């Protein structure tokens, strides 16, 4: 006869313990256990057999042992003991001791938990949805002392949210937007992972009383730490400095994303401008743009030369002190300029710092002229978008074969938006998203939600302007191609721009085509806003009518993009290819 087994020594009874058992084992209060398990990511598990009854919560013994070895556990105990000391000092009217003790409060860090829970960066990205949603929620909440929401937490959340958005814009990672009743859903593709987050509508939230804010704040504490490190890593991948500098002036002016983008977007904006200029020069053959480009190039070369001279000078100085005075002068000049420069203009990377130095060497006028050039290119785009037919005529003049292009193809290329050209591969989703609004300048009315719109417009390659500080264009600017309004009737209208409702921006971004603006005219009910998270058919196998309409437009746009990309491949061969391409498109 075998040895008699004792009850509760093996199997589920030994592997799992109830929450009460766990709390007793860890010698914690329930609130402390909750806090610890939230931070550590320990959750109950479901045993096959429930030795203590079905209505209990079971934790795995290994999980609890893991908690028991957490250094934070001891820190929390210390904090508790410390609070008791402070309380006692206060009760004895020993204010000085209480104050001194308060300074000695034990501190703790959570970074090791982040690493422990997410050993690889991809793991962290996969779990980012909840973190971002909670973070964006608290970024909009009031710091209500009644519920113990400290203002600092709100500020941190806001900063991290802006940093994340700035990254999304900078890397062009945004893929989908959806305006639901609950808020704005965004989906970005970051390092191959789809990250979805929900941002509440920018209206004041009523804080419900039947919610335990301590639980949410504990989650937020961990999430904010996680987000901080994720942002660091992402900025690191892009080669940007972290944390980015927040432009206090713009932040005060509630320019949201602009405040942070101004810091990190330095590199991209310049390159963007170059690209835009190049693209325009090819498509429109505009001499001015080319000239501006050339000027810029020349300026750059000059600056390089001066830098070279500086280096050579330094070398010479190392040998002898012949050119010391010369160099000193230069240095002085540059340092002065650096002092002149506002801190926001200094950008993330070292290279970029150098570039900026160079720019500064040329003076601010150059920078302004560059801006001007960008603006002018935007203006040209706007006119080209507006006077489409004229451009077509020009094209016809230049290239008689282009006359074959039918009206349908014309609509397709119009819908293709900025993501049309030799440099955009129509099958490359990322390039498509980055360039969709390329060359478009949006003016956001005061009544539209600026933050989500700005995120979408900038992430899809457009330029957003608004009424207020930090805006690159004012309302009367000729460069503006689209004005986003959400009011029943529009008073004064500029003829040179389209007036659209905010949904136009979201729909265009989702469908990867520029929708017809007439459907989204201010004052009329826009077409249904479809969820981009639903595929061809929804769960019931139904396709809304509007989706079919859009599908046709998408096909036309794809054809136009393919044609544009194909033209670039064989452009040198001659004109006959155009007809061929058109045929191919027709067949498709």
């Amino acid at each position, binding site marked *: 006869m075998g040895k008699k087994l004792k009850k509760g020594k093996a199997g589920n009874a030994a592997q799992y313990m109830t929450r009460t058992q766990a709390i007793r084992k860890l010698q914690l209060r329930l609130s402390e256990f909750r806090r610890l398990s939230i931070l550590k990511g320990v*959750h109950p598990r479901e045993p096959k057999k429930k030795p203590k009854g079905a209505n209990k919560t079971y934790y795995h013994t290994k999980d609890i042992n893991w908690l028991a070895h957490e250094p934070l556990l001891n820190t929390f105990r210390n904090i508790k003991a410390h609070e008791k000391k402070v309380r006692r000092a206060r009760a004895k009217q020993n204010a000085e001791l209480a104050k001194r003790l308060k300074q000695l409060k034990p501190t*703790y860090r959570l970074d090791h938990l982040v690493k422990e829970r997410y050993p690889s960066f991809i793991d962290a990205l996969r779990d980012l949805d909840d973190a971002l949603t909670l973070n964006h*929620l608290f970024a909009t909440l009031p710091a209500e002392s009644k519920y113990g929401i400290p203002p600092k937490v709100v500020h941190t959340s806001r900063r991290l949210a802006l940093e994340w958005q700035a990254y999304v814009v900078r890397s062009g990672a945004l893929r989908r937007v959806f305006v639901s009743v609950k808020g704005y859903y965004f989906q970005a593709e970051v390092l191959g992972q789809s990250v979805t987050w929900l941002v509440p509508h920018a209206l004041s939230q009523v804080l419900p009383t039947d919610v335990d804010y301590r639980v949410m704040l504990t989650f937020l504490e961990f999430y904010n730490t996680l987000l901080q490190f994720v942002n660091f890593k992402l900025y690191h991948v892009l080669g940007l400095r972290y944390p980015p500098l927040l432009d206090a002036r713009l932040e005060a002016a509630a320019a949201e994303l602009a405040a942070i983008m101004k810091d990190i977007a330095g590199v991209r904006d310049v390159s963007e401008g170059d690209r835009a200029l190049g693209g325009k020069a090819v498509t429109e053959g505009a001499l001015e743009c080319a000239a501006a480009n050339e000027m810029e190039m020349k300026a750059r070369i000059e600056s390089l030369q001066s830098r070279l001279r500086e280096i050579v000078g330094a070398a010479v100085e190392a040998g002898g002190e012949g050119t010391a005075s010369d160099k000193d002068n230069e240095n002085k000049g540059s340092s002065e300029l650096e002092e002149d420069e506002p801190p926001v203009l200094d950008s993330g990377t070292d290279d970029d710092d150098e570039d900026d130095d160079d720019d500064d060497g040329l003076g601010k006028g150059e920078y302004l002229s560059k801006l001007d050039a960008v603006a002018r290119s935007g203006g040209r785009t706007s006119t080209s978008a507006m006077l489409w037919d004229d451009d077509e005529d020009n094209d016809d003049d230049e290239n008689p074969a282009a006359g074959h292009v039918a009206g349908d193809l014309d609509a397709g290329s119009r819908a293709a938006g900025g993501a049309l050209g030799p440099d955009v591969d129509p099958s490359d989703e990322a390039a498509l998203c980055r360039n969709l609004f390329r060359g478009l300048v949006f003016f956001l009315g005061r009544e539209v939600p600026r933050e989500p719109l700005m995120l979408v417009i900038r992430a899809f390659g457009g330029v957003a302007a608004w009424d207020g500080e930090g805006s690159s264009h004012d309302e009367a600017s000729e460069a503006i191609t689209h004005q986003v309004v959400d009011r029943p009737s529009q008073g004064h209208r500029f003829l040179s721009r389209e007036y659209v409702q905010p949904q136009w921006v979201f729909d265009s971004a989702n469908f990867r085509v520029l929708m017809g603006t007439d459907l989204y005219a201010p004052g009329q009910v826009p077409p249904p806003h479809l969820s981009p998270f*639903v595929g061809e058919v929804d769960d019931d196998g139904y396709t809304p009518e509007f989706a079919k309409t859009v599908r046709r437009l998408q096909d036309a746009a794809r054809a136009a993009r393919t044609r544009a990309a194909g033209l670039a491949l064989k452009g040198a061969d001659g004109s006959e290819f155009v007809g061929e391409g058109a045929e191919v498109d027709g067949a498709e």
Partner: protein
Amino acid sequence: MSKRNAKREPVKEVDSDIEDELEELDLDGDASSDDADSDVDADGDEDGDEEETGTTSDAGEDDEIEDAMLELMAAQAERAQRKAAARMPNSEGDEPGARRQPSTRTTGKSRMATAAEAVAEPDADVAVAGAKEAATVAAGEAEDADEDEEDEEGRIPDPGSDSSEDERPNRNTVGAVPLEWYKDEEHIGYDIDGRRIARTARKDKLQQLLDRNDSKKALRTIYDPYNDEEISLTKEELAMVMRIRNGQFPHLEVNPYEPYNDYFTREREVMPIVDRPEPKSRFVPSKWEEKKIVKLVRAIRKGWIKIEPRVRQDPDDPDAHQPPAYLLWADDGTAEGAGPGKSGSGLTYIPAPKPQLPAHADSYNPPAEYLPTEEEVAAWQMADAEDRPRQLPTSFPSLRAVPAYKDFIKERFERCLDLYLCPRIRRKRLDIKPEALVPQLPKPRDLQPFPTTLAVSYEGHEGPVTSIAPDPWDGQWLLSGGQDGTVRLWEVRTGRCWRTWQLGAGPVAAVAWCPNPALRVISAVVGSCVVMMASGTGPEGAEGEAEQALQAATTSGREDAAAAAGPAMGTDGSDAAVDDGAPEAGQLAVWRPRPAAMGGGLEVRLRFPVKSLSWHSRGDYFASVAPTGNTQAVVVHQLSRRVSQNPFRKNRGRVMRVAFHPSKPFFFVATQNHVRVYNLAKQALAKKLLGGGGSISCIAVHPSGDHVLVGSDDKRVAWYDMDLSTKPYKALRYHQQAPRSVSYHRSYPLFASSSDDGTVQVFHGMVYSDLLTNPLIVPVKILKGGHSVVRSEGVLDCAFHPNQPWIFTAGADAKILLYCN
């Protein structure tokens, strides 16, 4: 009244305290109070004078009087306050409350009286009389400035009383009872002597109006229902009320920020209360402080107390102790951890399920078809909040109309709860969708070519066409036999009937080409005869060769047959030429030439009616099937030697069809229930393929020889994979009626079956060379409409073109059709 007394009691106590203290104090206070008394008296006299004059004075004088009174009151109040302040250090607890009373207790009728009271209270009783007078003067009802002479008498203070209110005549004593108790009574209450106070007659409206117009005081006259009297407020009182309303002190003269004068140190007293010398302890350092300092010094030395300035401002700041971010995942991928998919505790990491992504219905502007109907909305409203979805799809006309989602925080909170409270378990759920169960069939378009369109119709037969056979070499000719007894040879491309043979009155049951490419001989079955003739097609000399072969067979066969007549194979009669009678009882078959008039050739006459014919691929042997022949049902003939033999001693079941294996020495015998495969080399049964429920009607062997297609009367076409099983690999039941014939294409992966329902179904039947992959069977085309069903007979035969993906079909409507791709 009781309430009022209760309120006042502490005040009285205070008074007594003050009095005691006053007694303790020296004459300084007394002197001052005396001064005050004299002042008051003087003022009072003055007041009285003015009143006397005031009887005839007009409004301007009223004001003057009021001003004077105001001055008086101010003076008194100031004095009183100064005294109170002076005494304050001595008085305990209640004193401030008592002092504050004037500002708080200013309701109703008695506000002025209480003010006066407050003024009077601190005074020593010497001053009481004067103060009383002043108080009464100030206190209302007063309006002494008015011409109310009678009141004047009533207001004469009683020196023995310390309350001014109690002096007033006609004073109601009912106390703080609801006044409606006296609503219907004649009196409003009782005076202090217990007499009823009669209710004065209220003025009627007209009188009120007149009063209002006549007197300028009407606007500041209020009615006191408790005492049933009207009180006119003076301007000072009004000003006081206004100040109270503004939250200021009621008295202008009150200065809340008076300089504090310490009672003890303000004036160096000649005879101080305490005149002890300062104790020594006030001049030596404290021992306890020293100890404390020593403690602190030690703590600093030991490092318990850090004295360097701390950078951190707020210890509650959660971020202050967080380090600045750094590259946490620098060694990404190489990090030591619990391993992939493991949490830190070594258990499997189970990520929380992600929330469902929003669908069209969650949009702020969903398509109209997603919006709930009125019934749905009603049902939603009726449902319990826990059972229904949180929100119904709602449509907003524009983005600016979208409100904040009120459950947002709640939902996030619930998500948080889910994250840390819900047990997580990894369940293997088979999420099988119905579509996933259906195999991924390639699209028929991808399986081209196969016959799809009707190209040629061969017409000429006058009855149902029972059998067709395209020539197996280049597919130029099509042979057909019909129930009209003719065998016709058609040119495939043109549809021209090239030759016609009338073989007899009986129907032609089957036609076939001899596969020998040199001969170009056709064969047909009429009744119990198998007829072989030269077709007249083919290259130069082929016809002659065929003639010769048939002739040779005839001639040489005669001797051979005689010589080879053995017990097992009874052959023709040597005297078969005698007449064209049937074979004799011992004979299996009779070979004999056909007369040239009838087309020449050769015929083999058997004992039983032959139904089908099958050639071996070399073109020398052929087998005939006579289902009714019982033991002689299957007869194998050799053309070159002109012999016939019966390979089976007996047949199990009625034999319907036979077929030769295209390359190996196998022989397929299809009885009604089985297909038996015989190995001719070993002369043994190799395999028995099991049929289904119906009797087998047709069979076709795949060009590779490993697959057999069998059609049976239960409307079923079964594909047998010989290597796989003796049961069908696929049993296809798609025909409405029993299949009549099945056929494989020789080179394309196609097969077809024709049926009495008038259709021909074409399949893609790909056979793979590796043995592991099963054949792929995809229906690609149903050819219908070409043939009409005649007497419940549809398409009687079908055959593929040898080289092209074309199919010939022969129908009971006397038509032969060619379908091309």
